[in-house]
């Protein structure tokens, strides 16, 4: 009987030690999956936005709704900038071209942990994704 009681106690201790560790491991693994998944989704969004302004609309499109991110991440925020492309050797003759091209830079940001719970005590971790595309000058009209 004494042997039996010792064994039961040992099992309880094992459970008490293993279960929290297991829970923690799963929580960490899930959080890592959220991080990687959201990073991939942000990059997909940036690539889609860059592709859209390159081939369809010259203006920068807004982020696709619904928000594809997982976990407590904030909805993606989009910033964009267009910079005139400077030729390394400027053309000095009489220019016949319509206008210059631009380099559009799309940057998408999301905060990984937001709101209450652990998010209020943990440092704010932001994820970024960037995509660049060349904007050709507008095609001249026909007449």
């Amino acid at each position, binding site marked *: 009987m004494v042997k039996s009681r010792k064994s039961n106690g040992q*099992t309880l201790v094992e459970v008490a030690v*293993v279960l929290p560790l297991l829970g923690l491991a*799963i929580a960490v693994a899930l959080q890592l999956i959220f991080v990687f998944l959201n990073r991939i989704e942000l990059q997909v969004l940036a690539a889609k936005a860059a592709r859209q302004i390159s081939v*369809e609309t010259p203006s920068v499109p807004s982020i696709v709704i619904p928000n594809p991110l997982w976990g407590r991440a904030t909805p993606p925020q989009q910033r964009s900038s267009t910079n005139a492309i400077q030729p390394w050797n400027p053309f000095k003759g009489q220019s016949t071209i319509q206008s210059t091209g631009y380099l559009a830079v799309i940057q998408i940001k999301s905060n990984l942990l937001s709101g209450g719970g652990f998010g209020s005590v943990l440092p704010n971790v932001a994820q970024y994704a960037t995509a660049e595309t060349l904007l050709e000058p507008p095609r001249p*009209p*026909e007449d």
Partner: protein
Amino acid sequence: MQRIIKSQRGQLLLPIMGLMFMFGVFLAGFLKWSAGVYWQMRTDMVAEAVAISAARAQAEMLNNLAVLQTIQNAFLQQVEFGNTNVGHVQAAYAQEFKASNAVLIAALRGFNGQTMAAAQAVARANRIKTSAVPYPKPDHHLVPQKVNVYYLAEFVPLGKEVVEKAYFLRSWGAGKLHAQPDHQVSWGVSDHGVVSTATATLWLDVSPSNWLNNGGFPGKDLSWVRNIAIQCFFPQFNARLISTPADRDLLLKTALKTLSS
């Protein structure tokens, strides 16, 4: 007693293994989804690279053809009378004219093959094992023009020859002076079971306000002034990506999926 102890030893193992198995399945699914996203992005990028590279190859060839046509003016002075083209070549330069004309025709003959070669080279460089498929078939959209050529020694006529492909008119923008090319080819690529399409078009990068702009190549139904000599003033064709029309997208994706299965 011994039996009870033995049964207690395996109690934790099963739920832990169950949890680990479920988590493993979840992880495998996540990795499969990630790989799908990766291959889709990669195939999209390759399709765009193929389309823009093929279109840039076409633009470069049109620019070269325009220059070669302009060079023809040094040997052949031609003008259009009604529907007949008449020109003269000094007999002393007959060989040079024929050589120049042969180079122009050979360059045009290689247009479609060079476009395909550029597309396949880009696809292979991006480790695509199957061929990139175009729709519609790439074409230069240039129409050969027959010219009645009179060979003269100074002002003395020596003979006449009908040259079937003396120069080329553009088939796009008939009647339009500041015409834009209508070359538009969609390309489909397939990799790891993922199919993607992209489309590129050509455009003439010349301001319409420039009075010498005639659409890059001589056109049909233009004023008589535009039919004096072979006018190719600005070989400034360029290429850009555009969105793929839905019908072409469906056609190419169906064809590629059929080919890969």
